[in-house]
């Protein structure tokens, strides 16, 4: 941004405080903050404020109708002892741990194949792969409730072709989680598009060089492709993980709501945000739900920080000699 120098007044070195005050006198600074005003207001009203409020609420008993009463750390203690929290956490983490690597592996495989094809064909297939991601999430839930039907669903009909007697994906507590994973693989189009775009940017001469050095297809993939697209891989890992930890719509559509499906009793489709939502808005346990919300915040924060730390080691940035 060398052009910016022209807008900054040339001045002798000043102390930090004086420079700050001088900057504030410039009309440009005031204009900048005017442009930023929507976001600053929004941050205060709808992010920072609510976060503080939910922290405060998490130490109270609040049901919207009666005034909140302070209960100390009771909600957090309840959270630790609540078996349903444990189930919800288990389901959510299991889903995340399986869905994220599996979906990225499949998306990467398809993206590599698309890249091999190239040209118009690849563009056409990319469109086809992306289309499911355009389906409204509730419709995805409805669709897979039908497709995963244990007696007559399409998935089991397909398995039947291979002589496999498919389980009752939507009613058998032992199989529900795997049914949800199958569903989640249908909407990986966004990941495919991102990885395909990254693959197209890998310079061909790197492969040429690797080939001259005698590297086979697999070694080229491992030592050229993966490092060169590691930035994008890292990005989809982080984004998919955060989204998976917050899984709500599809599963809520399928198994919760007014229609009491028998699965609700078994809790095998209970995800963390579903539990939070039900506590807060169906049972009006707003204090407890706020504690759950902060629990989620801490979990997401820790998981993301760990991933960023690990990512630093694996991600190759251009111009970086490591």
């Amino acid at each position: 941004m060398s052009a910016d120098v022209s807008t900054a007044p040339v001045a002798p070195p000043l102390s930090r405080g004086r420079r700050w005050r001088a900057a504030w006198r410039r009309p440009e600074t005031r204009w900048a903050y005017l442009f930023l005003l929507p976001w600053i207001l929004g941050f205060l009203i709808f992010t920072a404020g609510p976060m503080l409020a939910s922290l405060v609420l998490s130490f109270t008993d609040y049901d919207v109708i009666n005034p909140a009463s302070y209960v100390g750390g009771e909600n957090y203690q309840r959270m630790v002892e609540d078996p349903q929290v444990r189930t919800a956490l288990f389901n959510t983490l299991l889903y995340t741990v399986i869905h994220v690597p599996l979906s990225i592996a499949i998306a990467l495989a398809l993206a590599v194949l698309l890249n091999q094809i190239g040209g118009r064909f690849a563009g056409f297939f990319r469109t086809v792969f992306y289309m499911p991601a355009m389906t409204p999430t509730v419709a995805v839930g409805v669709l897979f409730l039908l497709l995963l039907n244990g007696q007559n669903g399409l998935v089991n009909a397909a398995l039947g072709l291979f002589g496999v007697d498919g389980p009752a994906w939507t009613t058998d507590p032992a199989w529900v989680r795997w049914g949800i994973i199958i569903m989640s693989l249908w909407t990986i189009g966004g990941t495919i598009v991102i990885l395909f775009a990254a693959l197209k940017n890998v310079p061909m001469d790197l492969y040429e060089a690797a080939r001259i050095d005698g590297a086979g297809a697999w070694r080229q993939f491992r030592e050229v492709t993966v490092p060169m697209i590691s930035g994008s891989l890292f990005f989809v890992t982080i984004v998919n993980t955060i989204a998976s930890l917050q899984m709500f719509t599809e599963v809520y559509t399928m198994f919760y709501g007014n229609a009491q499906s028998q699965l609700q009793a078994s809790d095998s489709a209970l995800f963390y945000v579903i539990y939070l939502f039900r506590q807060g808005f169906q049972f009006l346990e707003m204090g407890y739900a706020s504690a759950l919300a902060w629990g989620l915040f801490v979990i997401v924060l820790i998981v993301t920080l760990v991933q960023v730390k690990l990512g630093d080691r694996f991600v190759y940035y251009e111009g970086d000699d490591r």
Partner: protein
Amino acid sequence: MTMVQVEPTRPAGGDQRRRPPSGTSPARRVIRTGFIVTAVALVAATFTYPFLWLVSASLKPRYQVFDNLLIPREVQPQNYTSLLDAVPFLTWFGNSLIVGIMAALTVTLSSALVAFGFAYFRFPGRNVLFLLVLGTMMLPAAVTLIPTFLIWQELGLSQTQVPLWAQNVFASAFYVFLMRQFFLSLPRDTFEAARVDGCGYFGLFWRIAMPLCKPALIVVFIFEFRASWTDLIRPLIYLQDEALFTIPRGLKAILDAFGQGGEQQWEIVAAASVLATVPLIILFFCAQRYFVEGIATQGRKG
């Protein structure tokens, strides 16, 4: 840093890079490509089949929904008319359209404004604030769900559609990030020239930056419209009156009333799912290059 360009065509000479290994003979190359195309086509068919299945199911009589035949034995388009007779689907459609347009319009304008502020100006606190913007992208929406509800309730708007879009007036971190990239890719000389000609800061934004970033604006608009069209959790929280339902909220109600909670009228549920999906598919085909480029850009951040 990446230049963001919404361009349908690949750069010239792109095919050059795509030449397969020089050691293989043309015949083997054709066979290899043919094999890959076949494999990908099979997977693509698997991805497409559920759509076709759904459309087909929505046209079948009730007791044939699960026969898994792609061509219905009897075509029963009345499923759609029975659906429209049973629920105010067209009203929900209109509601989703209004909410979606409001959400997309407000977020596009406000995010562009903020993004321009970050991209053009140098000012104290800029880096800290931008880090804060990035930080809020990681924040799970569920954390602020309850206090946000309490705010709208306090304002007396908790039973209206306003909470579904009004927050977008205050910009959204992800789009600010995206648009900032676009603005940064504009040559700075353009702005300096306009400044010399006496253009004010707002003029720079509105008359110069915005017209140049039309593709980016379209990307943000359609992304947010899609997000709004599929949002379920907020309509669940804020909408109790059936007349105010959006499409996802309505579809969930249909599932509960006609599907597993009701008389297993899955043909009606399927018809509703088709109607809920079609607008987004149309939108996708109209704005395909923006979608693809917009998504591809996400992965190229930083």
